[in-house]
């Protein structure tokens, strides 16, 4: 966190024209300007998060007073619930796949587009990025047809390429559903990472790369020892967004598989939606939400720690 504010906040200033103006006026201005933002932040983010901690100790359906104190039972139930554990596992699988497939693919394309000096760059960028601005239902229903068990695009393609191929219900099969959904998620989101990488590559001073070439480095070495290290901040940001993003996945999965078949594509947020919100188990749902907060927190804090360690050793 501290590296972030030192980059964003300007340094404290010494005496200037504004310092002469009355202190009272300044306090009034700060209060007025801060009020709407921090009230909103408090009411809609901070307070609900802390309240969830409180509600998580009760069995509560949202109606009537909180009476049924159950201690840690909600947590115990969640952690021993097979569906919840699988949901957690699915989120982790998607997170790992995103980091190992989605990001390298995005990097590969960004490198080809910029270093390959392709023409019509804006056109290509638009093709790869535009799914990012589609809503989740648009994406889900288009792909629901792509995976259609008889006549979808995927089955049609494979049956023409592979002789004797039998049509598959990609989303109806427990062993293929997660991979099929990961393809959709990649289709929709990898453009964002490509965009970040393109910006990162463009910010590199090409003279440094040229210097390495002059010193006899081949293209692979230039990438490995010059380009990637210089893009480290972008790669870190991208990985961070990817991690947080994979914890929030919801709409595409709910609309395409409802978490099925047999919970094979259940994710944490669809789990909270189904077992907490729809059934109004708000105490239990709060406990699961708190667990999710901790997971998000561990990933972001742990991530920032490692990132900073890397920075320090340079």
């Amino acid at each position, binding site marked *: 966190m501290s590296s972030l504010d030192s980059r964003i906040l300007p340094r404290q200033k010494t005496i200037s024209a504004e310092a002469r103006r009355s202190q009272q006026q300044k306090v009034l201005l700060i209060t007025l300007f801060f009020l709407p933002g921090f009230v909103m932040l408090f*009411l809609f983010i901070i307070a609900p998060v802390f309240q*969830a901690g409180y509600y998580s100790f009760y069995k509560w359906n949202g109606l009537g007073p909180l009476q049924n104190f159950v201690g840690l039972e909600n947590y115990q139930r969640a952690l021993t619930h097979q569906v919840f554990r699988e949901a957690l596992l699915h989120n982790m699988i998607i997170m790992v796949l995103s980091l190992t497939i989605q990001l390298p693919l995005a990097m590969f394309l960004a490198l080809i587009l910029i270093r390959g000096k392709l023409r019509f760059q804006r056109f290509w960028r638009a093709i790869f990025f535009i799914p990012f601005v589609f*809503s989740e239902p648009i994406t889900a229903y288009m792909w629901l047809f792509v995976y259609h068990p008889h006549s979808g695009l995927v089955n049609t393609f494979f049956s023409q390429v592979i002789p004797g191929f039998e049509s598959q219900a990609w989303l109806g099969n427990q062993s293929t559903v997660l991979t099929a959904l990961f393809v959709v998620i990649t289709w929709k989101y990898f453009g964002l990472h490509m965009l970040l990488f393109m910006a990162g590559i463009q910010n590199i001073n090409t003279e440094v790369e040229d210097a390495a070439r002059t010193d006899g480095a081949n293209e692979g070495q230039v990438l490995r020892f010059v380009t990637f290290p210089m893009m480290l901040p972008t790669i870190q940001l991208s990985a961070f967004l990817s991690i947080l993003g994979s914890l929030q996945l919801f709409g595409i999965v709910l609309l395409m598989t409802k978490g099925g078949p047999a919970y094979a594509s259940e994710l944490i947020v669809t789990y909270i*939606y189904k077992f907490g919100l729809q059934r109004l188990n708000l105490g239990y749902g709060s406990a699961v939400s708190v667990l999710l907060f901790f997971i998000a927190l561990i990933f972001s804090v742990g991530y920032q720690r490692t990132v900073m360690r890397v920075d320090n050793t340079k």
Partner: protein
Amino acid sequence: MKHVWGFLKYGVVIVLAIIMSGPVITALLGSIRTSGEFVSQPIGLPKNGIQWENYTDILSSSSFWSQMWSSIVITLGAMVVAVVVSSLLGFVFARVDFRGRTLWFNLLMIGLLFPLAVAILPLFIQLTQFGLINSYWGVILPIAAFSTPFNTVILTNFFSQIPRELEDASYIDGCSRFGFFTYILLPLARPPLTVVATLVVVASWNEFLLPLIVLNDPGKWPLPLGLMQYQGQFGTDWAKVMAFVMLLIIPAVIFYMFAEKYIVTGLTGGELKG
């Protein structure tokens, strides 16, 4: 060797581009044919003439336009609230010295750790207690609140780049701090304000989860939920569903073409030249 590489790099990009646009092209070709044609041959041209009814059925229904209206209300509401709130915060963080500034800034950054979907159940409880369930405010205010940390970072960045001399000069000319903010800073900040507005427009226009849990009355549903409802009714009638999909894709693509510069700048945190 040069030629091979030149051929190869375009080849790879073209193949990937075809894969990327495949679903959209299929949806387009499906939306102008009958469902029977579409299901028997996913990619193909209309043999019985273009089925405009797929589109006109949707466009002539009142529910489509009421969903459009809801989407506009939610999007404009969230945009106005988010821009006002984050420019006020950005101004204080960038241009006013006070003790505890870093502390407040870090407090704001906590918001970045809790994306909307992650906090959805606690948020639902809170909105119920405020009586905001089934109200547009119950969608607008949380979207604005959850986008505020990121928006404030963008604006703080920009506001702190405005030269100190400009501010001092405005004070000498008799401007108050508030006057400097309103008459000098905000007009100068039109490009970053547009960036923030654009990002909020994209997020709120597409928001699915929040209206799903907040708006009980289907009469208030925005377009993403409208598409879900339509698919629920005509699930097997793929051509109709794809027409609805295309009706939502076309404005999204047009919007992207006009707002590309702002979307790209906002997401990459790049500096926009005024």
